[in-house]
């Protein structure tokens, strides 16, 4: 043996080094997908691959997010685990897009509506609405609005307080802070869409009516084409209108109309026309910002100001009068507006990629911040890539989606909790604040339901469908859960780590759970529905 080793020294060294290297690095391999089988029950075929599916890693990432969001762990104004101490002005975006992500994830398993998911969405809304009075400098009001660096607090339109026609439009919840009010309202709208509690309807309605006032009148009681600011859009920062920021209240209004049976959407007609005709760059993509008045905040770069105001924000790189463009603006706006103007997104998507996509390798690509500065690389390139991952997923461009995901996630280790329930991407060595962002970003990119799918309200009969109303959530992984109204059966793809009981509501009679095409068990009647107790294992269940 020793002689053999002695005769093959280099081979042995290379073999050991290979084994050691491979052994050290297997933790980042993808988790295998749970099975999606086919069952035939009473002559009806149930193919699990026909139903939306949430991957195992998405659920593990969600479990991690729960530990930094849920009020079970910390107060609404506390930020332990967010690594956000050194930032302001970004927290509310993280909360909002996390909410859109999980709302889409909840929709993928629309029959699993226990408090675990509902409370997460509720806590996000409450976190988004923390006031300075209660939480001081930890509040979103401070971080997004009253932070002294912004100088956002009091302002008028036109930007001259002594003008007798000037309208006061200041305030955190005021008419011109669409970069917060829009997100907050959409979070509320999605909560009501997904959980139908009615709790946020009044506040949501107030925002819708306030936008209606701004977009159709001069806020002095007179109707005005293009609304107060004359562009049919609502500004933020506080004298710039952005397509991306306005895409949020536009989608909110569409969803609100769908849920409430109202007709507020026409208030956006002028603004939609404005973004599709005026706020366009040389390629017909959205420009990133249009000044409706001269700004006041110290953040405004005078190099961005157009010669005449109103006018488009200027590119810092081209310096030849070209407008500012960015991938995050287009990636975001094209995705969120697809529900409203699908053809525009379909038309612009390939043009957007043509000018913003950079190929690293066959399995990796990224999106540059702006084609006016193709050799730069920084935060906004990452942001543009994040937004385009979702857009590509929504457009069904999975090849590009995967390449963008590979680019963004290939530099981080997956960290699993010791019980295997939670996972996150460790960004501490590069940028700690990215950790929660990349956690929901992965779900955002890979979920089978996208933001476009959330524009429709659920049909009234949906609320009568059987669903899982409570469960031992800590013991299970719910990959698929929905009522199939056409086959009158509940589809459940679940992994059980420890014995777990699920309670189903809305079944009219005692249902039977089928597994592998044969009867597994009948559910047990309880006070609040029918219960199913499952031993540890992997199940594709049809319950009918």
């Amino acid at each position, binding site marked *: 043996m020793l002689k053999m080793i002695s005769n093959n020294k280099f081979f042995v060294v*290379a073999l050991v080094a290979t084994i050691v290297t491979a052994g050290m*690095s297997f933790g*980042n391999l*993808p988790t295998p997908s749970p099975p999606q089988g086919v069952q035939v029950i009473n002559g009806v075929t149930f193919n699990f691959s026909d139903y939306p599916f949430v991957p195992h890693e998405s659920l593990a990432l969600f479990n991690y997010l729960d530990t930094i969001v849920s009020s079970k762990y910390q107060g609404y104004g506390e930020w332990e685990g967010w690594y956000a101490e050194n930032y302001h002005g970004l927290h509310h975006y993280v909360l909002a897009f996390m909410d859109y992500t999980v709302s889409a994830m909840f929709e993928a398993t629309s029959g699993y509506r226990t408090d675990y998911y509902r409370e997460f969405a509720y806590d996000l809304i409450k976190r988004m609405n923390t006031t300075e009075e209660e939480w001081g400098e930890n509040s979103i009001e401070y971080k997004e609005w009253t932070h002294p660096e912004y100088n956002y607090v009091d302002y008028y339109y036109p930007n001259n307080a002594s003008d007798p026609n000037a309208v006061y439009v200041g305030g955190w919840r005021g008419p011109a802070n669409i970069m917060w009010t829009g997100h907050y309202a959409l979070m509320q709208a999605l909560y009501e869409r997904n959980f139908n509690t009615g709790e946020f309807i009044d506040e949501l309605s107030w925002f819708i009516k306030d936008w209606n006032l701004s977009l159709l009148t001069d806020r002095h009681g007179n109707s005005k084409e293009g609304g107060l600011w004359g562009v049919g859009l609502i500004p933020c920062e506080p004298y710039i209108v952005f397509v991306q920021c306005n895409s949020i209240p536009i989608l909110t209004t569409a969803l609100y109309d769908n849920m409430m049976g109202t007709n507020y959407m026409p208030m956006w007609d002028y603004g939609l026309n404005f973004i599709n005709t005026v706020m366009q760059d040389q390629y017909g993509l959205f420009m990133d910002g249009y000044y409706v008045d001269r700004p006041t905040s110290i953040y405004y770069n005078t190099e961005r100001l157009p010669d005449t105001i109103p006018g488009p924000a200027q590119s810092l790189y081209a310096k030849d009068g070209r407008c500012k463009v960015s991938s995050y603006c287009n990636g975001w706006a094209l995705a969120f507006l697809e529900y409203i103007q699908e053809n525009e997104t379909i038309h612009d998507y390939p043009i957007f990629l043509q000018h913003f996509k950079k*190929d690293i390798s066959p*399995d990796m*690509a990224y999106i540059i911040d702006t084609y006016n500065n193709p050799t730069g*690389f920084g935060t906004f*390139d990452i942001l543009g890539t994040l937004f385009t991952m979702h857009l590509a997923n929504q457009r069904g461009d999975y090849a590009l989606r995967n390449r963008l995901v590979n680019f963004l996630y290939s530099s981080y280790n997956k960290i699993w909790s010791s019980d295997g329930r939670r996972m996150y991407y460790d960004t501490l060595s590069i940028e700690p604040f990215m950790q929660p962002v990349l956690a929901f970003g992965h779900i955002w990119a890979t979920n089978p339901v996208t933001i476009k799918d959330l524009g429709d309200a659920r049909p009234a009969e949906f609320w009568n469908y059987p669903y899982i109303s409570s469960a031992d959530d800590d013991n299970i992984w719910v990959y698929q859960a929905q009522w199939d109204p056409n086959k009158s059966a509940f589809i459940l793809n679940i992994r059980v780590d420890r014995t777990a009981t699920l309670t189903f509501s809305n079944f009219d009679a005692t249902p039977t759970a089928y597994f592998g095409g044969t009867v597994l068990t009948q559910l047990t009647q309880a006070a609040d529905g029918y219960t199913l107790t499952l031993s540890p294992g992997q199940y594709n269940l049809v319950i009918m």
Partner: protein
Amino acid sequence: MTEETTKSEASAEKMTVLERCRMNDRSALMKTMLYALVGAALYTILQMIPHPFIVLGLLKFGLLPSLTIIALVGAIRGPTAGFLTGYLGEVTYGLLIHNTIVTMTLDAAAFGVIGLIVGLASYDLKNGRSLVKLSILSVTGLIFSTLLIVVIAMKVEVYGTLAILGFEMLPLLTLGIPTLMFLTPVLARIWAKIAISLSPAGEKAH
């Protein structure tokens, strides 16, 4: 196949260019192409399988087994087969799995350079010194390949230097060097064993 790996280093020095490229007659050319195609197919298959890696600080370590196929084919069948394995394998992988061709296949050609450089030398694959030579030339090929990819990214594709360094050059080196240095000689040795056992006369293989 063992026949193809039995040239001695001394006789290799006297080879013509076509002989070194294993394209000196129709039969040799056909075999070279066959090796390249099989190598490209293996490369594509290995690329499809997620590779293990670990990130330490800003550096990414692990194994990229597909790279060893390029080096192995180069070592076994010469520079043409080695180059084509990398080139065709990378193009096929991009087209089949990611529906894309990157930078007019120039990147793929850069991967082929690994096989080209490795294939320029001759090896006795069951000899330790020869395996060391294979390791060194594989890594040399990777360095040339990486430099070419960086130049292509900067001059043809034109994107951020930070993106090139952080997402392309460094990972390729930190994954590729351990792979080519350690895994290539291991697989080469295994190949030599297989070749000997398949040889009817138990012929010496190298």
